[in-house]
């Protein structure tokens, strides 16, 4: 293990390390901690110019109450959920199938199609902006959650397929051969053998895609507008316009918007990190 395990170092260094850890963490998260503190400060602290003092009283209830009951935040959160969940399901489903095809079968175009997905996934997606917006308009899906979901599914399919294909490629191939010798139809091999084995990958991808899509801002502003379909990342700007310069409320809003992916990350940490690294490193 590198660096040398702390247990094997002198006592003095161990203590230094142990005490430096929390300090480093606080420094690292300083901007966030500041926002968290902002969000529970009462309005008065700001008008009094007390930005960096501890909250004079706990204003959290009021601030967060405003976020939830006097703004469109709940609606935006719901929109985000309605966009994120179908996207995760759709993209992962498509990728499972495509990954299976690319990971298991040997055919001429295999590598080319795989690279098509990979290359598409690397594209700076802004370049799709004009045509995709147009397409969405033509389909009558502009400013609908469906329009956003369809695009997200399509674009995330690139990454998901890369991930799934590499994962499936890592499965022991004799499993497939054993099933073929047993006379099991190809689609049944997918359903009964490959799919169950992909569970961890599916979990990882779902979590990952959830975060990616939840945090998407660009497509949200390109393909949607208005409270009926915009997700919370875009909603937060309207929210901030509504409460401009009301830092306690803006902070509370930011924290509310950021919370779901953070919660997912903490709940599914193992899968999340596996997803990030496995997808990338294979």
């Amino acid at each position, binding site marked *: 293990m590198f660096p040398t395990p702390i247990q094997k170092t002198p006592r003095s260094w161990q203590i230094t390390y142990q005490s430096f850890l929390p300090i480093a963490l606080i420094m690292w998260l300083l901007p966030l901690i500041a926002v968290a503190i902002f969000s529970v400060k009462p309005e008065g602290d700001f008008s009094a110019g007390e930005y960096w003092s501890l909250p004079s009283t706990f204003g959290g209830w009021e601030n967060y109450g405003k976020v939830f009951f006097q703004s469109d935040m709940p609606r935006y959160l719901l929109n985000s959920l309605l966009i994120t969940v179908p996207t995760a399901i759709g993209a992962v489903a498509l990728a499972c199938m495509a990954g299976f095809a690319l990971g298991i079968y040997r055919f001429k175009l295999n590598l080319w199609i795989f690279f098509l997905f990979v290359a598409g996934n690397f594209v700076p997606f802004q370049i799709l902006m004009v045509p995709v917006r147009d397409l969405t308009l033509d389909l009558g899906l502009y400013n609908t959650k469906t329009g956003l979901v369809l695009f997200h599914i399509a674009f995330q399919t690139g990454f998901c397929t890369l991930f799934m294909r590499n994962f499936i490629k890592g499965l*022991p191939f*004799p*499993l497939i*051969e*054993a*099933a*073929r*010798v*047993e*006379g*099991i*139809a190809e689609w*049944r091999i997918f359903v*009964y*053998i490959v799919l*169950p*084995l992909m569970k961890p990958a599916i979990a990882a991808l779902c979590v990952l895609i959830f975060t990616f899509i939840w945090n998407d801002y660009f497509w949200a502003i390109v393909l949607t507008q208005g409270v009926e379909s915009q997700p919370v990342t875009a909603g937060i700007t309207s929210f901030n316009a509504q409460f401009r310069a009301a830092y306690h409320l803006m902070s509370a809003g930011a924290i509310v918007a950021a919370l779901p992916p953070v919660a997912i990350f903490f709940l599914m940490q193992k899968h999340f990190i596996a997803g990030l690294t496995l997808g990338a490193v294979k």
Partner: protein
Amino acid sequence: MSGVVLQDVVKRYSDVQVIHGVDLQIEDGEFCVFVGPSGCGKSTLLRMVAGLEETTEGKISIGPRDVTRMDPAQRGVAMVFQTYALYPHMTVKENMGFGLKMNGHPKAEIAEKVAEATRILKLEQYLDRKPSALSGGQRQRVSIGRAIVRGPEVFLFDEPLSNLDAELRVEMRVEIARLHKEIGATMIYVTHDQVEAMTLADKIVVLRGGYIEQVGAPLDLYRNPDNKFVAGFIGSPAMNFLEATSKGDSIEVPALKQSYKLPVAMPADGTRVILGIRPEHIEIDKSGDTLAVDLTEALGGTSYDYLVSDNGEKIIVEERGDERSQEGARVGITFDLERAMLFDAETEKRIR
């Protein structure tokens, strides 16, 4: 009847040919072992029988049926893989019954067949475990069980024991032998392990570079190899080969500084030949001094002497018991001329 017949079978991967026209007949109920060095095409040949690799040319029949172009599932074969290939998310019972279930067999029939296989392999107490909760040997037993359940005409094994440790390997080897006795189906078995081949096979097929070198019963190959390759491949430690030249009805062996008269049809004078003697057929002659003892190894029950001749050829001698020669000493050797073999140095064919 369900023997397996390969007629002039060829396998090519794009432009590399890896199997060069193999003809082979495996009788019904026979235990046939493919051996040969790594990369010689053992697995490829086995997988062609299974239908997992396409046959480029030639014909493969199982029993009366030509299966050359059939799907694996239709050939009536079952395969046991080196890595077991158990479905990790299914219990032992489900693993064994899966094939039948997917092909729509009634539950009662599946249960019955699984029970039968379980009995044969003594897996009763593991039926509800997942493969991950089994030892390597148990896993391999389950994978054999899965093959049995399908009731195939031919069992195919691809190095089934090479992922097991030495002790388990011996155990499973005995188990497979017993299984063959019990169900009597045709079995084709790929291994690179001498001992497995010798002890399990009714018939050993020695492959090299995509060609069959020799086919025969284990002891026939040991006693009566057709060529230098088979002679060297079968038997451990490997046969000693010494360069020699024919002269009249004898051969001259420079390493031993002596002529020998072997009971074989001698080739023309001056032909370069090779004398083959197995280490276990050589006795040390302490009074001799033609060879130097380079190294000795005592294993307790047996010892090996590594001898070097003055012209640099090496000879291994297996000695019974724990006596061994002195390292650095000089000795001679004697051997039974009946058991020595002669090969043509060019063609490597046996001279009989």
